[in-house]
Structures are given as structure tokens and as C-alpha cells.
């Protein structure tokens, strides 16, 4: 091995160690794809309720108390919750498998840091969207999801594979365009959470995992 190769290898070692110790790099592209598929299924299930082909409320005879409990009586709420957990669980499984393959503990310092930083915009956004629902501003929920999720991803990009930043930018762009077409939120939501996730996941899988 020449001197040149040796120095290059040492520098690459240093770079790898810096990344491995400061970023959560086990995030799998397949997680993005699976989350995207869950989102598309969720949007498909929600479609007849959103566009009024089916009754919104589960028990139409129930009294309407003003407040957040009304939500629990809608099909949409349960579809949304189901979609969220299905996406989360499938995404977790693929990332868990990748971390196992790489021999990196899934619940380390980098994972905690990533989770913490992704949660801040998401929790704030969630509370804000609940308030919007309470005031009946349903049209802003889909763009709100996209915007806060985009911000969360950009915030997360410092703590995981950097490419996730571009997914964040795209989510924000889709969310902003959605603001011009309030009422078509479900389409934009499916585009952002479904199609973009699948495109991003495929790209990441192709770039980092295909050869392994």
C-alpha cells in the first residue's frame, strides 16, 4: 500500500468515526418506503369520508360535546391514528434490521438525540393542529402536517443522514402549495407523506443499502 492510500484510508476512517459517533446512520431507506405505502393506504381509506361519500361520525346519535372528544367519534381520527402507528412500526422494523446488520445499537446516544430533535417540531405542530381542529379549521390540517413535518426533518438532518434535509424542503414546498388550494388537503397529504417518502426511501436504499 502506498503512502497516499494509507493517508487516504486514515482520513476516511476518521470521517466514518465522526459520523458514527454523532449521527444516527442506521435509518433505512426501506423505512421511508414502508411509511409512504402506509400513508397512501391511509389516504385511500380516508378518501370517502373526507369527500362526504360516507358519514363522518361513527355514532351519529351521540351528543355533541364541544371539545376534543368529538374527534374520537370520527372515522377519520382512527384512520389517521392507525396510519401513524402502522407507518411508525414498519419504519422502526426496517431501521432495527439495518442497525442489527451494522452492529450499531439502536437505542444509543445518537438515536436519543435524533428522536428528541425530531419530536420538538412534531409535538408543537400536533398541539397546534389539535387547536385548529377545535376551531373547525379543517382545511389547514393537511398543510399544517406537511409544514411541521418538513421542519422536523430539517431539524433532524443534523443528527442523521444529511439527505433527509431535502425530504424536509420538499414537504414544506408541498405544504405551502397546499395553502393555495385549501380543501384539497388529502391529495397534497398523500403526495407529501406517501409519494415523497417512497421516492426518498428508494433513493436512500439505492445509494446506501443496495450493495450490502
Amino acid at each position, binding site marked *: 500500500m*502506498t*503512502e*497516499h492510500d494509507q*493517508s*487516504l484510508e*486514515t*482520513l476516511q*476512517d*476518521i*470521517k466514518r*468515526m*465522526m459520523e*458514527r*459517533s*454523532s449521527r444516527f446512520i442506521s435509518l433505512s431507506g426501506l423505512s421511508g418506503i414502508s411509511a409512504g405505502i402506509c400513508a397512501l393506504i391511509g389516504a385511500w381509506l380516508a378518501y370517502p369520508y373526507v369527500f362526504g361519500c360516507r358519514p363522518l361520525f361513527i355514532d351519529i346519535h351521540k351528543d355533541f360535546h364541544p371539545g376534543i372528544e368529538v374527534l374520537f367519534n370520527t372515522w377519520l381520527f382512527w384512520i389517521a391514528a392507525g396510519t401513524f402507528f402502522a407507518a411508525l412500526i414498519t419504519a422502526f422494523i426496517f431501521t432495527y434490521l439495518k442497525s442489527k446488520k451494522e*452492529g450499531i*445499537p439502536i437505542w*444509543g*446516544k445518537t438515536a436519543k438525540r435524533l428522536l428528541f430533535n425530531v419530536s420538538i417540531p412534531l409535538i408543537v405542530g400536533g398541539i397546534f393542529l389539535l387547536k385548529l381542529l377545535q376551531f373547525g379549521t379543517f382545511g389547514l390540517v393537511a398543510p399544517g402536517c406537511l409544514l411541521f413535518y418538513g421542519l422536523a426533518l430539517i431539524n433532524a438532518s443534523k443528527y442523521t443522514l444529511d439527505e433527509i434535509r431535502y425530504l424536509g424542503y420538499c414537504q414544506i414546498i408541498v405544504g405551502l402549495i397546499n395553502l393555495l388550494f385549501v380543501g384539497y388537503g388529502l391529495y397534497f397529504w398523500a403526495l407529501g407523506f406517501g409519494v415523497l417518502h417512497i421516492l426518498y426511501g428508494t433513493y436512500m436504499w439505492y445509494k446506501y443499502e443496495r450493495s450490502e
Partner: protein
Amino acid sequence: MNPINNLNKLFDSRVRLGIMSALMVNDAVNFNELKELLEITDGNLASHLKALEENNIIKVNKGFIGRKTNTTYAITKAGEKVFKAHIEALEKMIRSTK
């Protein structure tokens, strides 16, 4: 001057390079995290840490989490300077031997 002279003998081993890399991008890293990262034995890691500490490259902070000891390591100002010089020397060598 031959750039090889700027290479610091202290950073000759892969383990030490790994320790330094981790400490450059984290405020503080504890013993177990380093061990997991570098995949080496306690004794091996401890001896390298000791060498770096004795040369004032890293500083040790002995703390507690509950009753368990939690020893964390951080890079010193001097250590940061020395390590950066080492990386620059490596870069120079790559450029000069291309």
C-alpha cells in the same frame, strides 16, 4: 519539509484516531459509548485513553449517574489543535503523493 514529520506519533493507532474522531464531534463521550463505537476490550481502551490523558490531549471527568460511576472524556483545547494539525498533515501527504 517532508510532511510525514508533522504526523503525530500519538495518533499512530486506529483506536486513538477513533477516540479523537468521536471526541471532536461530541462534547463528552463516556467509556461504554467509546467501547461500543470502537469495538475493543476495556483494558485496551483504558490504556489508550490513559496515554492520551497523560499527554493532555483529552480530559477525564469522573461523575455519577445515581450510584454508578460515569466517566466521561472530552477533548482539550491543546488536543483539538494537535489533532487538527495531524489531519492537515495527512491531507498534505495525499496531495503531495498524488
